[in-house]
């Protein structure tokens, strides 16, 4: 999507790739993992510990104390897992999807029951994931999942059931690409990561005829061949449909490294990238299409950003005052309709008004013939860095203030399970960093998110028109300032670890 069609520079259909860097560092080579990452056991070795932790969490959710601060399911899910995921995304890449325990279970299930169908064409987009992402955010508030070990355990089990059901029914990585809300969160966030899975030498790919990176490798057909049965797949290629030579950025990439294992030329690594740069490029790319034309991706970006604001807003005092006011005003005494109203405003009406107004001003300033929705679609990507900054600040708050609480909770769990304090007496005095220190980190994350969003606005605007870039970008910069101020205000409020005020 190009904006007003004013500039001859603007590419429309061909992919506008990121400039090739002279020196892209390769994390696999730096860490000496190049060979081992191609082994089948590599990912399993990452997944197995997480699967074990997941099982422990599920067990503790159902059998352990039903007090969130003393239960490993709630503690690890809502404090440590979320914090580590966003920090890994910030400093490395999509490491959680790489070590996803759900996929390990799915792979085992697929051995018993191979999938037979293809995911329906009408659902081959991000709309199901947008809906599920919003549903998870809504459920989190409605069922107070942060304070609900049983609910958290049910959520983890549901996740396992969902991936198994979807992926033993439908071929390829259907759940990861089209369904998984955590995956979508990671895909968008990893656009801000410093590393991406990419080809080391494009020339090698230009001469490749076998395309194992996407097709996988199969056993050799016996000679003379008599049947036309599909050959056993020895190593699968990218199940998310990303053809590496035309892949751009981390969107839809689970860092599974199936492509690296399949590539016979050892030509795929985890290379350094400029964070947010792929958010500014336009044009068709493998497995994604043209992101600037995809409304589902735009909706996902908007949800990612405004969901972050709403999720953080739900932890401070004014939201309770607002809910009480609405409840009194409408004479409602159950929470779900009020929460629905809040989500409707927070995720639909307010974003629509803000983005619509910004796009209108942009259109007016540049006299663009484009429809407002096209302008919004083009610039929605610029919300991703700001959203990621807010998620980082929010999850970072919980993670850093409670980082050490896992020690006494684990000690207590071991003591109650085995009847002996093998890990020592629970050291309940261990907490985390003081709030005043974490507040500064929050400000830092918000600032980086703001910078990232402004850079994306700058990049998109300059791609469309060098001359009108400032005019086009101005309202979008203003929008980012508004989002920054909103997030800053929220983070500056005293955090209240509150449940719902009405219950149910």
């Amino acid at each position, binding site marked *: 999507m190009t904006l007003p069609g004013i500039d001859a520079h603007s590419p429309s259909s061909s992919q506008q790739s990121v400039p090739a860097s002279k020196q892209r560092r390769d994390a696999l080579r730096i860490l000496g993992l190049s060979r081992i990452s191609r082994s089948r056991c590599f990912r399993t070795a990452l997944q197995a510990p997480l699967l074990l932790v997941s099982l422990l969490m599920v067990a503790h959710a159902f059998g352990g104390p039903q007090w969130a601060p003393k239960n490993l399911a709630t503690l690890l899910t809502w404090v440590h897992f979320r914090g580590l995921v966003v920090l890994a995304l910030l400093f490395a890449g999509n490491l959680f999807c790489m070590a996803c325990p759900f996929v390990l279970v799915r792979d085992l299930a697929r051995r018993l029951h191979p999938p037979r169908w293809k995911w329906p064409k009408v659902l081959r987009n991000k709309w199901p994931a947008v809906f599920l992402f919003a549903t998870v955010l809504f459920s989190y508030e409605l069922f107070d999942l942060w304070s609900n070990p049983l609910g958290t355990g049910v959520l983890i089990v549901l996740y396992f059931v969902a991936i198994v059901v979807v992926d033993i029914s439908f071929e390829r990585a259907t759940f990861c690409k089209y369904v998984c809300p955590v995956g979508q969160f990671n895909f968008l966030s990893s656009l801000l990561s410093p590393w991406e899975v990419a080809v080391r030498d494009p020339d090698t790919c230009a001469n490749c005829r076998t395309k194992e990176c996407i097709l996988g490798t199969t056993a050799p057909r016996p000679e003379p061949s008599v049947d036309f049965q599909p050959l056993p797949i020895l190593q699968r290629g990218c199940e998310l449909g990303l053809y590496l030579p035309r892949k751009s950025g981390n969107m839809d990439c689970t860092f599974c490294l199936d492509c690296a294992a399949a590539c016979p030329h050892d030509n795929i690594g985890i290379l350094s990238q400029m964070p947010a740069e792929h958010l500014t490029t336009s044009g068709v790319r493998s497995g994604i299409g043209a992101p600037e034309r995809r409304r589902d991706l735009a909706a996902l970006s908007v949800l990612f950003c405004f969901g972050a604001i709403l999720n953080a807003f739900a932890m401070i005092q004014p939201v309770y005052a607002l809910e009480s006011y609405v409840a009194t005003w409408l004479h409602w005494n159950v929470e779900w309709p009020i929460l629905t109203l809040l989500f409707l405003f927070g995720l639909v009406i307010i974003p629509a008004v803000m983005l619509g107004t910004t796009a209108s001003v942009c259109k007016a300033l540049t006299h663009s013939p484009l429809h407002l929705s096209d302008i919004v679609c083009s610039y929605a990507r610029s919300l991703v860095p700001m959203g990621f900054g807010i998620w980082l600040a929010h999850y970072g708050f919980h993670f850093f203030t409670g980082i050490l609480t896992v020690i006494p909770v684990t000690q207590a769990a071991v003591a109650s399970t085995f009847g002996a304090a093998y890990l020592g007496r629970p*050291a309940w*005095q261990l907490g985390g960093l003081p709030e005043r220190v974490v507040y*500064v980190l929050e400000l830092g994350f918000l600032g980086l998110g703001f910078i990232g969003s402004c850079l994306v606005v700058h990049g998109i605007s300059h791609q469309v028109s060098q001359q009108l870039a400032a005019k086009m970008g101005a309202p979008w910069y203003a929008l980012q300032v508004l989002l920054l101020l909103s997030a800053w205000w929220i983070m500056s409020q005293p955090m209240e670890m509150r449940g719902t005020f009405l219950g149910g």
Partner: protein
Amino acid sequence: MKAIQAISCFVVRRSRRLVGLIVVAISHLCHGHEGPPFPVVIDQSFGEQAISVWADPDIGEATFYVSLNDADGRRPRIPPRLRLWVQPKSGRLLPVLCEAQVLPSRDSLQFVFQTTFDQRDYWVVRIFQELPSAPDARPIEWSFEVESTPPGYDAWDLLIYLFPFAFFGIMWIVTFLRRAQRFQT
């Protein structure tokens, strides 16, 4: 934007020095304890009991948590009297003896000592235990050293804390814009 670019270029030119500064700032932050209480010793034998000590030695109000268990891992039946003695290592102040606030938890006896550290310094801390069964006997003593750590941040501290973010933010802007410019030309 040009002004930002100019500032950013200047920053990048001076990046080696800045990296050095960051290292100093980070080491300062690591050196200065701003976090939760840290363990000084865990389950060390102390008379007939096992002692664990956590320190939160902030300048201003310094807190020490001491927990005692019997050899069988249970709470001592008869609480001993514990006292905490602190003095700067340099001896520039007279020693102070503190009494504890006793917090019996389910399986151990926890003592909380609060004292005042006036400035950043190395402090000698001694814990004395008097057994109720032998009040005239010489108390059992156990000692260690801690460094008092700065209190919360003022404006300068805030700048130091935010410096890494500002540095990486500026680096990001400069590199991003340079690459974008190269791409466009």
